[in-house]
């Protein structure tokens, strides 16, 4: 599945389902489980429907009635609000960036006896 059509075409995926949503919502809108399920089901349909390498199925879900989101599709990045000239990039930090402080404590407890086997390449 993809929400970045040009990138998927450039990479050359064997087959793809295109979801025309803002980045960060490849499999649906938050807290809409029925919509998420419908989206995935339609995307999986591409396995049967596409018969040529590089085929892309366009899913017909709409993010909203207007296209305002397209003005700032990489929401959260403030580059457009700040204007060119400001470096929008998040600093490249080489330590784990936990969502919650408690995640860090749990992970360190689980890894205190050595590798966990499920964090491959992150020990």
């Amino acid at each position, binding site marked *: *599945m*993809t*929400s*970045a*059509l*040009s*990138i998927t075409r*450039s*990479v*050359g*995926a*064997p087959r793809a389902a*295109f979801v025309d949503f803002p*980045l*960060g*919502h*490849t*499999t*649906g*809108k*938050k*807290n809409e*489980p029925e919509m*998420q*399920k419908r989206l*995935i*089901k339609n995307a*999986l349909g591409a*396995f*049967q429907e596409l018969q040529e390498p590089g085929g892309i199925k366009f899913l017909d879900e709409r993010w909203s*009635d207007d*296209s305002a989101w*397209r*003005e700032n*599709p*990489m*929401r*959260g*990045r403030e*580059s457009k609000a700040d204007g*060119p*000239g400001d*470096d929008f990039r*998040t600093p*490249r930090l080489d330590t*784990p*960036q*936990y*969502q*919650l402080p408690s*995640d*860090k404590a749990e*992970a360190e407890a*689980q*890894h205190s006896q050595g590798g966990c*086997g*499920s*964090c*491959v390449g*992150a020990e």
Partner: protein
Amino acid sequence: MSKSQTGEPVDYIAETRATYDALGFPPYQWVESEGTPPWSPAEIPLEDAKVALLASGGIYRRGQRAFHYKDDASYRVIETSVPNEDLRISHFAYDVSDAREDPGVVFPAASLRSLIDEGSLGSMAAEAFTFMGGIYSARKVREELAPALVERVVDQRPDIALLVPV
């Protein structure tokens, strides 16, 4: 002026190029594959198919290490029975607020489970594989991460594989 109601898909390659230009950076080198993409027909009906799940949205499970923001080419193994409440997100290149509230927007294990429950999908591999797509070294992905993931996925003997990038 707003664009039309439907609008054209956002061209992220052009957007990134323009942003890098404005910042005075050298052009970002997107992967451009040549030739026809690899292809295997999916010969099994979805109702009978076993699906493997891979996702690049920086998803980890409670108890696992989070991803870091400097060419992190590691991956996590997450059991596909995982409840959404145990999933977490670390990624620097997209707005993660909705994904943190509902990981189902980037990691569809719950949706796949309910498709299996209703009979429209056969089954799901026991383990999903996640990584953080903000990896600047295409070589690292091509030569290290991707082959490792392919091996893990093939080990689970799925019929089809669903990749969910962000």
